[in-house]
């Protein structure tokens, strides 16, 4: 039979190759169908909303839509001297419409983001504009308040004409576009965001270092002790790991308060005077101590799981070949633990950089991080586009760290216990 056909046929008479391909495709579809529900769920409820954040962070349509006629009239304006009557008339028409719709408050909030001082003059304009006479709006508007006769305020309005802007990202870096369109930094004493970014990096870095220094010895002990002891000690790591974050933060709030046990202890050993107890909470110290203890298990577990796979005979071999215990440790043991160190540090650093709850409770004003600022804009100022921009800047940073880690160590080397 096979002498007549060159191809191998299945019992159905279809060439084997085709049949195999078909089966392969069917298997692929089957596997994909299993993943599909979760994949689409995550894409719709999570990935798209992150894209939505991106849109919101650059979206500036609100003002564009509120003042359509003004911006059309401003197209011809060079922006150097006060605009012509045409622009003032268009602005008046737009403004009357906004007042009718009761949206002039929103306009003032938005313009105030661009330049301080719009709030009061818009309020004033609303009162006066009702009694405006037809014609010569330039004179009438300028008479409302001297700021309306100041070209800088009109330039500020013109800057809001484009429907998309990177202004929120600049604000997140304490920069802004000045009147002539150059990107400049805000005055030194008002650079709150740069301080926050640096502090976030600093705290995340030192928390990672502290966690590493504390986790390495105990992970080593856990990995080398006989099972029955190490299981018992493992509880000391796992119990905090499974305990609610808020419970652990609460316990630090009790310990670190001025009449708390830590201060009692310092007074007891004579380190500080009883009437001069140091403030250990609501500042950076509080953030450092609490975050280190809370994130420590995330460093111990990956280190432990790597150390457990290292055979003790390697160290013995190193020593028998003439190395001192220190040399044997440094040349043999330590290099083998690098995947664990990498995974632990990555995990702790990334968790620390996005930390919100603990700094908000024990960090005070000088111990809060960038996440607290994002939450503040989400919940208090309601400047959601700014919150989105800062969130995406943080996300970009986190993804960059993953990328670097992947290049250096390889993401597949991560072991999570």
């Amino acid at each position, binding site marked *: 039979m096979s002498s007549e056909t060159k191809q191998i046929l299945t019992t159905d008479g279809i060439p084997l190759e085709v049949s195999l391909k078909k089966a392969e495709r069917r298997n692929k579809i089957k596997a994909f169908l299993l993943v599909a529900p*979760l994949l689409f769920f995550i894409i719709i409820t999570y990935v798209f909303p992150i894209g939505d954040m991106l849109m919101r962070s650059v979206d500036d349509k609100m003002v564009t839509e509120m003042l359509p006629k003004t911006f059309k009239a401003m197209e011809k304006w060079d922006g150097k001297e006060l605009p012509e009557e045409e622009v003032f008339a268009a602005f008046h028409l737009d403004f009357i419409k906004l007042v009718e719709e009761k949206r002039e408050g929103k306009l003032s909030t938005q313009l105030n983001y661009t330049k301080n001082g719009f709030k009061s003059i818009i309020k004033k304009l609303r009162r006066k504009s009702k009694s405006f006479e037809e014609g010569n709006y330039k004179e009438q508007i300028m008479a409302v308040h001297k700021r309306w006769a100041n070209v800088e305020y009109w330039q500020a309005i013109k800057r809001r004409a484009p429907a998309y802007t990177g202004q929120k990202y600049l604000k997140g870096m304490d920069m802004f576009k000045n009147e002539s369109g150059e990107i400049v930094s805000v005055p030194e004493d008002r650079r709150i965001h740069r301080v926050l970014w640096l502090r976030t990096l600093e705290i995340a870095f030192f928390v990672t270092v502290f966690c590493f220094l504390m986790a390495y010895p105990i992970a080593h002990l856990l990995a080398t002790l006989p099972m029955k002891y190490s299981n018992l000690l493992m509880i000391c790591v796992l119990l905090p790991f499974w305990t609610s974050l*808020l419970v652990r933060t609460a316990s630090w709030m*009790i310990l670190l308060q001025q009449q708390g046990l830590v201060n009692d202890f310092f007074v007891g050993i004579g380190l500080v005077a009883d009437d001069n107890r140091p403030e250990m909470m609501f500042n950076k110290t509080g953030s450092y101590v609490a975050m280190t203890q809370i994130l420590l298990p995330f460093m111990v577990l990956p280190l432990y799981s790597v150390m457990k796979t290292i055979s003790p005979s390697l160290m013995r071999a190193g020593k028998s070949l003439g190395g001192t215990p220190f040399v044997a440790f440094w040349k043999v043991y330590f290099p083998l633990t690098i995947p664990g160190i990498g995974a632990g540090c990555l995990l702790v650093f990334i968790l620390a950089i996005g930390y919100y*709850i603990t700094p908000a409770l024990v960090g005070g004003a000088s111990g809060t991080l960038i996440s607290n600022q994002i939450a503040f804009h989400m919940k208090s100022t309601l400047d959601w586009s700014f919150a989105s921009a800062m969130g995406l800047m943080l996300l970009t940073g986190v993804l960059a760290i993953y990328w670097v880690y992947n290049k250096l160590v390889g993401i597949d080397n991560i072991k999570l216990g």
Partner: protein
Amino acid sequence: MALPKYTEPHYRIWHYVYLTVCAAVFFFLIAPLFVIFPLSFNAEEFLVFSDGMKRLDPDAFSLRWYKDMIYGTKNPWGLATKNSFIIAIFATIGSVILGTVAALGLSSRHMPYKGLIMAVLISPMIVPLIISGVAIFFFMAKAGLAATHLGIILAHIILGTPFVVITVTATLSGFDHSVTRAAASLGSNPVNTFMKITLPLILPGVISGGLFAFVTSFDEVVVVLFLAGLENTTIPIQMWTGLREQLSPTILAVATCLIILSTLILVTAELLRRRSERLRGINR
């Protein structure tokens, strides 16, 4: 750990230094949790150890904060507890079902674009919570699900599934696929094979993933803070507001209950892990 007799003195000293450091770190890890227990039985309103407590005077201890936790009118702990359990249970069920099914597909060797899809599926675990919170809030607000139980449950499913996907794919990596083929050759349909053969074998992984999802939901506060209205308050939200406004001993009573709960979860998770290790040991 006993040292060999021939150890030189300075290494001996070094060894004791090492053990002391380890002891200090273990103390640092576990001791803060034990401050909460005694203070939650404090008869007084202050969060410091009173002189009576230091003398172990029975009058200095009381259950008044536990009574306040259960019967207190000011604190809606009852509502919070009910909400927390409802949300956590449904979020766990959702995460376990979606996560397990997806893990089955992901561990098939025919799965296309495995790396990319895995990255998308576990992204909620990698992205800082505050960003997830903002993104999920935008979605729920648009979908009209903000301040509803359903919205919070869906949010917690997003956050919980990565744990299930990871634990179940890890369990499936040691899974012998010939048993499912054997079942199929004996005439079992795929659903039947899954329920009778695959599921019992991967159950420890599924349950420990579920435990992670449960704890994630039960402890979660960042996303809930964005989503919850007054009706949807949960234990973490109540604790958060309590800790921000005034640290009352009632919170410590709640915290003690939570520590007991986490101990139970820890024990369950450990037993499961050992069982699964034993089973995988037999497979090898």
